């Protein structure tokens, strides 16, 4: 199938396969990217001449976006789980159930993007764009970077969706592994979003 070792099976010394190890290293670099942005947030907030006001009037929108994003991640986790279990849709002649969970996950993630761009547009309409204050500039920067990560996750999910038939036929464990590795990315995106909600909408 392939000459590259440990793409699916666990490597004895690291305890994970190389795909997941690569994903963990990527997430470490992503964490450092957000560390720089959060550092800027705390520095600018602590040094602000006027105290920053949390966007509590938009907390409902943020809660809605949070639920949609978490639902998307849950659907993605379910996709990985059903693929691992080789679960098929009952009565459909062996159709793999993970396809539907993956599709649901993509829909939820796209919905999150719509909610977030709507939120940004609403703030622009109320003259609270990034040019109005340092707080809003940091808000748009951080939520914008996060939105790009969600968009990148959608691209990966769509790629998994499109390439699954051949990969599944030739090497099902590979696609299971890819789903599990991509799920780690979605967990990371969710955690960053929860921190953003607390920092901008709550405190």
């Amino acid at each position, binding site marked *: 199938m392939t000459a590259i*070792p*440990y793409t699916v099976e666990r*490597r*004895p*010394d*690291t*305890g994970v396969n190389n795909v997941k190890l690569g994903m963990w290293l990527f997430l*470490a670099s992503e*964490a*450092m990217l957000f*560390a*720089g942005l*959060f*550092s*800027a947030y*705390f*520095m*600018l*907030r*602590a*040094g*602000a001449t006027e105290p920053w006001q949390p966007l509590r009037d938009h907390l409902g929108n943020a809660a809605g976006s949070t639920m949609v994003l978490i639902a998307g991640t849950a659907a993605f986790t379910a996709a990985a789980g059903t693929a691992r279990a080789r679960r098929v849709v009952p009565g459909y002649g062996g159709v793999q159930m993970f396809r539907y969970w993956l599709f649901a996950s993509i829909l939820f993630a796209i919905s999150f993007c719509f909610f977030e761009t709507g939120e940004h547009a609403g703030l622009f309409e109320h003259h609270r764009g990034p040019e109005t204050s340092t707080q809003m500039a940091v808000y748009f920067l951080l939520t914008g970077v996060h939105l790009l990560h969600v968009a990148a996750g959608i691209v990966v999910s769509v790629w998994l969706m499109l390439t699954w038939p051949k990969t599944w036929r030739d090497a099902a464990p590979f696609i299971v592994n890819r789903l599990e590795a991509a799920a780690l990315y979605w967990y990371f995106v969710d955690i960053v979003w929860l921190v953003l909600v607390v920092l901008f909408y709550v405190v």
Partner: protein
Amino acid sequence: MSFDLPLVACAVCFGAADGPMLDAARLGVLVMAGFTVAMLSAFGLFFVRIARRGALAVPGDKDE
């Protein structure tokens, strides 16, 4: 040449070493340092884990 407004320069250069701007910069550095230490600790633990698991491996048992 005259100025209508006084020049507002960096508080640190003008001796206000305990000003709010410096406190803010300290906080920013602290947050960044916290993330960096956490990440390096994770890498350190990972290498310790590799060393331990490598030591447990049977000699001559090549996986390739």
